[in-house]
Structure formats: C-alpha cells, structure tokens
C-alpha cells in the first residue's frame, strides 16, 4: 500500500514485475538500473541463486518528481518465476500498487504465460485484491526472437478481459520499450489516485484503456 509522508513530502509506490520463469523480469530491472540517471535510483538488489535465477526477488528503488511538491518513490520488485516459488510470489505481492505482467512471446512459452497470469490472479485474490483494482500493463517480451506469436494472438490470450490494458512489444535485452512499459504503469497507477479517478470510478476519464499495442521501434 502506498503511503504519503508530509514531513519529507514523499509518496511511495510499489510496482511488481510478474511473469513466468525466464521471461525477462530481472533483465527489465537490470536495463532500467543501467540507463536511469544514478541520482534518481538506488542500488539494484538481487536475491538470486549462483546460476542467476531469482530466488526471492530483485529490488530497485527509483525517485522522480511527478506530483507537484512531492518526491515520488517507485519501488520496483520482480518475483521468482519458477512454479515452485509461489509462496515467495505471494510475499512480494503484498501491498502492491501496480503490476507489469511480462509475457514471453515465444510460442512454446504460451502455456506458461497463461498459467502465470492465472497464478497472478489467484495470488491477488488471496490478498483480497484483483486486477480490476490494481493498475497493470502487459509486456510482450523477446520480440526479437524468431519463433514468436503474433501480437494479436498474445492480446487474445492475455488481454481479453473486460478491462483491456496497455500492452507493449519489448526486447528487454536491448531495452526497447522497457522504459515505455515502466512509464505506462507509473502513469496508470498515479491516475488511479487522482481526484477524477476517485470520483468517477468505473468510467474514469483519465483511465488508460488504449487497445493498440505499442510496437517495437526499429
């Protein structure tokens, strides 16, 4: 849960990168850490195995000034994607404010994508939350690989809910659309807390419900 401190004029938000194993969640955070100005970020902390698989979570704190008069702190987390670490994913989801669901675009990973998305919904439900309330965006990663599903198919499989959300074609290893995804989820969650959103829930004029996927810029 976000919290605002009037004494230090800070607002904190927690964003979690969720998705199946080896879909590129840690790569997203690694790229952001590399490219963002050092004065706007802290250290990237990775609790990983010797083989660089995420064991608990990765964590990257970012600072920005986006609301007049306040420093906004975004805390980025990843979850371990491997199926057996579900208890850990539940812990990391605690108090989440925004989610980036990272899908692996390769055909053979489609089942894992769907399973992970369902797992996300289940884990949110266990904490009395749902994707209806939590701002989230979709990221279709690894668009540079040869054996990938078309975006329309990914949209059909993962973005076919009543509330359609922004989605991005991404190559996290080169950074394409990594920042676009981060900016989109940040803006979406900020708008959730704005007064217009509060007074017009369900038909918020500021709500982000675009249907087109943001493509890779070659």
């Amino acid at each position, binding site marked *: 849960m976000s919290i605002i*401190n*009037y*004494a230090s004029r800070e607002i904190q938000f927690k964003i979690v990168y969720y998705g199946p194993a080896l879909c590129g969640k840690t790569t997203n955070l690694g790229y952001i850490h590399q490219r963002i100005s050092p004065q706007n970020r802290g*250290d990237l*902390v990775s*609790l990983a195995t010797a083989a660089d698989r995420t064991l608990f979570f990765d964590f990257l*704190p970012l600072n920005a000034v986006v609301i007049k008069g306040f420093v906004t702190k975004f805390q980025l987390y990843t979850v371990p994607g491997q199926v057996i670490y579900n208890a850990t994913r539940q812990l990391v989801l605690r108090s989440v404010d925004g989610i980036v669901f990272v899908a692996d675009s390769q055909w053979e990973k489609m089942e894992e994508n769907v399973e992970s998305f369902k797992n996300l919904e289940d884990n949110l439900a266990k904490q009395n939350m749902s994707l209806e309330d939590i701002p989230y965006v979709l990221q279709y990663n690894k668009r540079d690989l040869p054996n990938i599903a078309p975006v329309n198919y990914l949209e059909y499989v993962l973005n076919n809910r009543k509330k359609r959300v922004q989605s991005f074609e991404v190559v996290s290893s*080169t950074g394409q659309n990594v920042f676009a995804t981060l900016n989109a989820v940040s803006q979406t969650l*900020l708008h959730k807390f704005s007064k217009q959103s509060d007074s017009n829930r369900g038909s918020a004029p500021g709500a982000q419900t675009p249907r087109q996927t943001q493509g890779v810029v070659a």
Partner: protein
Amino acid sequence: MNAIPVLTIDDVATLDGVLADFLKKAEAELTVVIDRGGNVISQYGDMTVMDVTIIAALAAGSFAATRELARRIGEIEFNALYHQGNGSHIFMNSVDEETIMITVFGPRTTVGLVRFYSTGTAQQVALLLKALQKANHGFTFEASDISAAPIFTDSEPTPTTPS
C-alpha cells in the same frame, strides 16, 4: 477508496519523538518502521550510512520468509528476529499485523537492551498507527498535478541494431 494514507507533519513528529526516545535509551544507531510490503513509514537515526529503502525491502522479505519456519514449530510467526554481525547487528520486531520495526545497532549497546526497549516502543508505535487509521486522513491529487512528460527517461539512446 483510492486515497493514499497520509502521515501529517504532526504524525511524523509524534512518531519521531517515540523513536528518538527509543534510540537514546537503547543506544542504537537507526530505527525504521515499515509496513510488511517493505514501504518505509517512519525512520529515525543515522541514515547516512545505508540506504533505508533497501534495508526496508530486505527486512520485510526476511521477516516474511521466516513465517513459514515459525509455523513449523506451532507459532503464527516469530515476534522478533535478530541478525548478528561482527560489528553491526539488526533486530526486527513485530509492531502489529501490518507493521515491523527494524533497529540497527553497533558495539555501543547489546541485543538485550535493544530488545527490552523495542518491545515498549513497538506497543507505542502500534497505538499511534491505530489512531492514525481511525483519523482516516487520505490524500488525493488532481490529474493535472501529474507531470505529463515521461516519468523516467532512458539516459542513453537505445541500440537500434539488436544482435
């Protein structure tokens, strides 16, 4: 309800007072009150030596990770955890169902002293936070207050030719 919970300047001053008193008595270096999701609620002490945000995220994870261990021996959770280093140590204790208190201390004091004073402090902090929830402060802002420009920028051009 989409309002963000607020700590007013007075709330922070009151919390700081309680934490300052605790640090003085326990002779510890730093104390941080966090929620169980890893967000910092309040902090007091020498914050120059470490990144409090990262300490909070890792401590919340550490506290949560031992919950299952506690269940195996018939406990709901451990009320307190102690990480002993060579010169610096961390003591964590539960404040309430949503909140944890972390204390970093060095050779000037002992874990016993920190543990003793942290119990009372945690109770005081719990009461304060409960009163805050009842006061139900909430903060919202206008959509026009949000910067329209991209929040984060890629500081170098993205490579255009993927290998």
